[in-house]
């Protein structure tokens, strides 16, 4: 990776980076908001990344000159913050949250599905260049996990079917159309009132609240732990690409799977994962620390 690694980190390109006139205007506006020019650094880097999709050495030089600070100061900031890309990325950037709340609700299965779909590990880019995948630490959507962020949009309360629908839209119709198609899901759409005090649904809440939908609730518990729930609680989930939970062996070691996604084992779910577990033990290990700034 890296098309720019010239000596001393100097750009190899002879083409200087330039913003479009509208964006230049935007930068001028940003600068007026702060008592120092330097304070505009992060917002201006955002404007540049919007245009260029990553922060290349040329961008760093441009920003340094524009804000009258050293390139080293700019680079220091770029390397500190996770969201500035120091390498080229795909057309869309997908972040999958793997911190505790999301992990408790099956975020790992989401990451696996994304890796398989894209054919790359977290930190990489799909071969068709449409998606880059990163593992994120807490994205402040804990009540609606598992979730992903695509570019600057959140998609929450995911199951694998919904996940594929979203990605298909991005892949086939482009980011703008996809964002329009799923416009309602961007806003916070979790619960705000306790049971029985719910107002009539006024807010758009496409696909929400998943946590309540019976279909998203786990397979019935084995009788040895607790009386099984009536079958009506968990109608057979729609076929997801993960192996059906029905195949889970009786809970030999520990309590039952408490999957929260269709057919997915949640964190600590007891049933040994379906069939092909034994293969590729390293898939996640190599990516757990992925493309994090801390490593660079």
């Amino acid at each position, binding site marked *: 990776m890296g098309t720019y690694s010239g000596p001393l980190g100097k750009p190899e390109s002879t083409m200087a980076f330039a913003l479009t006139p509208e964006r230049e205007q935007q930068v001028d506006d940003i600068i007026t908001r702060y008592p120092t020019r330097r*304070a505009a650094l*992060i917002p201006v880097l955002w404007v540049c990344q919007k245009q260029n999709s990553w922060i290349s050495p040329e961008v760093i030089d441009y920003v340094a000159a524009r804000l009258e600070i050293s390139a080293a100061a700019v680079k220091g900031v770029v390397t500190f913050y*996770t*969201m500035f890309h120091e390498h080229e990325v795909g057309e869309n950037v997908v972040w999958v949250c793997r911190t505790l*709340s999301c992990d408790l609700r099956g975020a790992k299965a989401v990451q696996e599905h994304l890796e398989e779909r894209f054919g790359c590990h977290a930190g990489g880019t799909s071969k068709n260049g449409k998606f880059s995948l990163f593992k994120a630490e807490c994205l*402040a959507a804990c009540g609606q996990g598992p979730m992903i962020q695509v570019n600057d949009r959140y998609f929450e309360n995911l199951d694998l079917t919904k996940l594929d629908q979203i990605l298909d839209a991005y892949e086939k119709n482009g980011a703008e159309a996809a964002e329009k198609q799923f416009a309602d899901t961007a806003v916070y759409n979790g619960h705000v009132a306790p049971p029985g005090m719910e107002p009539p649904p006024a807010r758009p809440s496409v696909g929400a*609240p998943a946590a309540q939908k019976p279909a998203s609730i786990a397979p019935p518990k084995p009788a040895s732990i607790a009386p099984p729930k009536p079958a009506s609680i968990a109608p057979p989930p729609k076929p997801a690409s993960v192996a059906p939970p029905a195949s889970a062996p009786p809970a030999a070691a520990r309590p039952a799977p*408490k999957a929260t996604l269709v057919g*997915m084992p949640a964190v600590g779910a007891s049933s040994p994962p379906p069939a092909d577990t034994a293969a*590729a033990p390293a898939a996640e290990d190599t990516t757990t620390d992925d493309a994090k700034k801390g490593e660079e």
Partner: protein
Amino acid sequence: MAEPQKLLTARYDLPESWTLAVAEKHGAYKIARRALTMMQPQQIKDEVKTAAIRGRGGAGFPAGMKWGFLAPKPTDQVYLVVNGDESEPGTFKDRSIMELDPHRLIEGCIVTCYATGAHVAYIYVRGELGFSIQRLEAAVEEARKAGYLGERPFGKAYPVQVHIHSGAGAYICGEETALLNSLEGKRGEPRLKPPFPAISGAFGMPTVVNNVETIASVPDILELGGERWAKLGKLPGDGGLRLYGVSGHVKRPGIYEAPVGITMRELIDHYAGGMLNDRPLKAVIPGGSSTPVLRPDWKVDAPAADHPLHAWHGQSEIDVPMGVDTYRALGTMLGTCCAIVMDDSVNMVDVTRNLMRFYKHESCGQCTPCREGSGWFVDILENLCNGNGKVEDVELIASIANNVMGNTICAFADGMAMPLLGLVRKFREEFVAAAQAGGLPEGTRHDNPTRALVEGKAA
């Protein structure tokens, strides 16, 4: 007159609640208008002090007192900085305000600016919340056009500007001095305190830094009056309604507005609809990942009559009212009041590893104990989980944690070590078992992939 059950979330369910037209029709900017035209700044400060509002960002410092530390020289420009860098794992409450009722926050900014002598407010929103930023920017633009921001808000010659400043992905920027550095265009590394921001904050000027929810509560405090607002809470010295978040293994994860001082049991059973699949509750992290864990089967031990928790002696930890002071007495922290609920299928060593990975990734790297310690924690926990651990490792974790705490510039290290020590103390048997049994019990090693990665399959 019945006391209001909903203040912050009162407008959440209105269609288009984020627009000025709807928000104003339902009361937005009424208080700001009254405050600027009819009240003196000192009156506002007094009301907020009487309201006993504890900072909603995690530390629980009384907001009125914080404002009182400001002592600007005549030449100083005071700044208000609103902390919307919500990134504590488990916490997702501020985002709902910014997305569903941004005008409440802007109104709070106007009133707070006026009360504290600031003319410029920066709302620092974490970079990932692109949608919140859009909503806030649109709302600021509407308010500016309506003449509520600018040179003469509500006709009063007291200029107020509100700017939205986006972060770019760094947990540490939720720490107030790191946030100020980030606002100034620097790496988000915390500063040594003192000087505190009230003396020398943004751009070297006296600065008030408050959480989004704190600022959004200010108009309600003025509307009800500090005393009445304070009484909405059930605990002395800790007033009002606040947003509770619940995530994890509950039926209805979400944000719920409730009085200060409900119990964790109420939050889980009543508000969040009980445990997912009715499994037993094993543990709950009460207020974001930096707060030590609670165990429902642990009892409050407060036999002394003068102990602040004596009234709950012998009861379960989750039956203690949730307040800043009660939770401190319990040996944990209220934090952001956003609970992560875990049922009995969860292995706590695994949970600890997940959290420590977060801290390792987010340590800013400035102080050695935190930067190195966070990595060691992860390494040791990986060993324990993967079957390469030793029983002594459990002591080792505790020893490192004790040496990390208090030896760094900011509270990040404490926020990492305290929950770690809490987990080791309350679930020691699981850590020891992981060391003795050569890893986590069968089926709980969730970081094994459930499927093989097929290179290049789709792309």
